[in-house]
């Protein structure tokens, strides 16, 4: 029995983003009990960090995780950031796709889903509202408001259930959320390990964490330097697509396409624009809105052929050698640590990135598995620990491809080593939705290898010196023991007296020392 189209479309409807993600929470990373909780920690911590740093404040976060029942937790998360103005509180916590991080800027979070996603998960699993206190400065004075919020998924808006002004002596945001169907775990993918790694990547921050058993961990600040704020950088010509150009053209306030190009792209001089006009024959004086797709496409094709200066890297703020080492020493208490931050380079022709890496050896480096310490790899993107999907990540792949034996590490997997790698970029090329692994672009693989190999050589030097010291003692003993008996036996063989061998013994000992220290040996 055939039915007409009209009938069939009676049930047609549109969903809001909140409704959609309510049905598809795994798209927000909420799949599995342990992972779900780690994602919540991740979203709240990165948000607090970004806010504090943007406001020029050394981040300090207090987290209190209580277990009420088997799978039921209450999470209190408070920061010392600049706070959220009252008007924006519901948007930040209750509206999907709302945020301030949609620019071409190096930042930890990026999707505009983080905080509202946590509230959605809380509400879906417990029905409880979120309690938010925001203290912020307005006209130089601190104002604080406490709100109880629910998310209305039908409209993708927050509903304020309660609101009252409160007293506060410093700025910051506190949020209290209930969760069910999540689980706190000490495993490598659990919330605790997430915090520990976060501290290594962010030694300028302080986190006080009370776990469900009531144990209080204080992760101290290893450095008092607030990282400089990353600047927004104009996209590099080699990094834009035709669609990007058209999108810019549609939303610009420039009157001419040429001025759009120079003002919206980096490394784009008037001279270059003239060249483009000449080669493509496109009239760049036309209004941006009149730009055609095929014209945009021809321009992008030309970009690929032109030489541009590498993208400006003022937007990239690495952690830096000193800070990385401070962080690793604070957390791992190693016997040796080395780190380095490379110069910026680009992948896919125009996206700038920096790789920095650190190695810690001995002490608490590595991960205890049973009785033994095993090597561990800590991956970071813009200081954020990457916890899942390590298999296909450029960082893992780069590190695994290194021939560690060349650096004096015979059995890499079972060495007491922690390797830290951070990729810094305005556009980290993630492999998957969850942003948990970095695509193995050839340039990134190359940098990860080079960076790590450089510090591995330092580790090798350290290990070698340690071994050499041991050996020197051994060698002196070897000569003392063997020279007399061998000469006695040789005399026996020659059927003669044992000669005075003291001068020869001294000679060989001297020579052996010289050899050990790499000095020239006098050959006879």
């Amino acid at each position: 029995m055939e039915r007409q189209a009209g009938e069939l479309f009676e049930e047609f409807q549109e969903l809001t983003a909140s409704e959609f993600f309510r049905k598809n929470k795994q798209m927000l990373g909420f799949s599995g009990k342990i992972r779900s909780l780690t994602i919540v920690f991740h979203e709240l911590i990165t948000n607090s960090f970004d806010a504090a740093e943007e406001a020029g404040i050394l981040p300090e976060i207090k987290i209190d995780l209580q277990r009420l029942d088997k799978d039921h937790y209450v999470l209190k998360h408070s920061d010392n950031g600049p706070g959220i103005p009252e008007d924006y509180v519901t948007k930040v916590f209750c509206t999907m796709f709302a945020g301030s991080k949609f620019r071409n800027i190096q930042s930890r979070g990026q999707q505009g889903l983080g905080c509202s996603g946590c509230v959605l998960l809380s509400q879906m699993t417990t029905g409880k509202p979120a309690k938010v206190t925001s203290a912020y400065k307005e006209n130089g004075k601190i104002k604080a408001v406490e709100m109880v919020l629910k998310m209305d998924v039908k409209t993708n808006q927050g509903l304020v259930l309660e609101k009252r002004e409160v007293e506060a002596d410093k700025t910051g945001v506190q949020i209290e959320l209930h969760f069910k169907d999540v689980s706190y775990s000490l495993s490598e993918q659990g919330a605790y390990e997430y915090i520990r790694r976060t501290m290594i990547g962010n030694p300028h921050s302080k986190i006080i964490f009370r776990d469900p058993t009531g144990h209080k961990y204080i992760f101290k600040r290893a450095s008092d330097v607030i990282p400089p704020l990353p600047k927004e950088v104009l996209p590099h010509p080699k990094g834009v697509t035709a669609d990007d150009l058209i999108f810019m053209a549609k939303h610009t306030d420039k009157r001419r396409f040429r001025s759009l190009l120079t003002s919206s792209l980096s490394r784009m001089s008037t001279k270059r624009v003239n060249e483009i006009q000449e080669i493509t024959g496109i009239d760049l004086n036309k209004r941006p809105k009149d730009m055609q797709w095929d014209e945009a496409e021809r321009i992008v094709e030309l970009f690929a052929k032109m030489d541009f200066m590498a993208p400006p890297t003022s937007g990239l703020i690495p952690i830096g050698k000193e800070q990385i080492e401070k962080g690793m020493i604070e957390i791992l208490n190693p016997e040796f640590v080395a780190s380095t931050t490379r110069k910026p380079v680009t992948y896919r022709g125009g996206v700038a990135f920096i790789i920095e890496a650190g190695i810690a050896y001995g002490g608490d480096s590595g991960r205890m598995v049973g009785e033994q310490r095993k090597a561990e790899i800590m991956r970071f993107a813009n200081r954020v620990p990457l916890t899942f999907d390590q298999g296909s990540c450029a960082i893992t792949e780069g590190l695994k491809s290194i021939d560690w034996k060349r650096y004096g590490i015979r059995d890499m997997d079972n060495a007491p080593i922690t390797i830290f790698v951070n990729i810094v970029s305005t556009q980290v090329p993630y492999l998957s939705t969850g942003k948990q692994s970095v695509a193995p672009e050839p340039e990134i693989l190359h940098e990860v290898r080079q960076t790590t190999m450089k510090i591995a050589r330092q580790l090798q030097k350290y290990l070698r010196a340690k071994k050499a010291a041991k050996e020197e003692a051994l060698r002196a003993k070897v000569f003392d023991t063997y020279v007399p008996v061998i000469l006695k036996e040789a005399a026996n063989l020659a059927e003669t007296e044992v000669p005075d061998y003291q001068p020869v013994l001294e000679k060989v000992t001297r020579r052996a020392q010289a050899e050990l220290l790499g000095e020239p040996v006098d050959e006879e």
Partner: protein
Amino acid sequence: MNNDAKLEAKLNRKNIAINKLKSLGETIIEDVHQNKVPALRVPSRGTSNIVYDDIKRHYVLGDRYGKRSLGNVKQIKKIGQMVYTANFCKDLVAREKTATLRELYYISEGWDVDFGDQQESNIVGEDLEVTLGMTREDLGLMPEEDGASVYGKITLQEGDIEINALRAGKSGYTISPTIDEVEFVDHDVKRVIAVETMGMFHRMVQEEAYKKFDTLIVGLKGQAARATRRFLKRVNQELKLPVYICNDGDPWGFHIAMVIISGSAKLAHVNHDLATPDAKFLGVTASDIINYDLPTDPLKDIDVLRLKELSKDPRYQDENWQMEIKKMLKIGKKAEQQSFSKYGLEYVVDTYFPEKLEQLE
């Protein structure tokens, strides 16, 4: 040689060995007197120092040396082991005794510089051989393994005992590691045929091949021991007997023959005492496999690999070898000596050997 001459030769060998060993000690002590760090020059046995000598038709050592210095932590133990071993050998030779490498290894337990494992003592034994230019048998160090079995009309003298290899049992006379102390007293054969397996040896004894071909039958038992190679060289040189080798028709059989003929790379330093360049490979060749329509097995990967290696080996550059290797690769098959039994037990002696000997002689 008469008995006096024999005795003299024996004493001579003994004295040379003792003097060479002694001079090793003297070199070291002399260095100390001159206030130099003692060091020994040991001819290198690395592959790059092993050279095929076209004139001598076997591998020889080149002229590269390694050093064992008392001033080097890694070498000092080696030099110590060499000196101790030299003393041990000197004592053996003086007392006209022998010992195995295994015994040497255990003896070293009492030394101040002992061996970490058997491998180490083997290497030092070889070091001593090349440094002094003597075989280890000369130094009293005997291999564990006995040599081949010999059957046929030859009389040998070991010490004061005369042995007739036709009357030593069906399994014949066993060449002992001390073959250099054995004298050839008498013989009534025209040639020597060495075969790879004892199965073939017994077949030849049973079929009275020693009578039919006036031959000594030598049962190699696989790769020929040093003593066997020395025996074959000696019968070839001293008794002027032609030597024929008949092995399985596969790369391993080929190479057992070739090591007898041209020596091995590993023993380049003693090949002049071991190689018999005039010995001839009788079969089983790839041509035999085809001509006699033998039962075969397919070549395995490792056989093919080995054949390709052989084809590049300087010892196999002769036209015939090249042809046979190519042919075997082409048919992709190998055959055992005993596969002639397809035509009956007697066939190999009644038909194959006569035909092949006629071709070669």
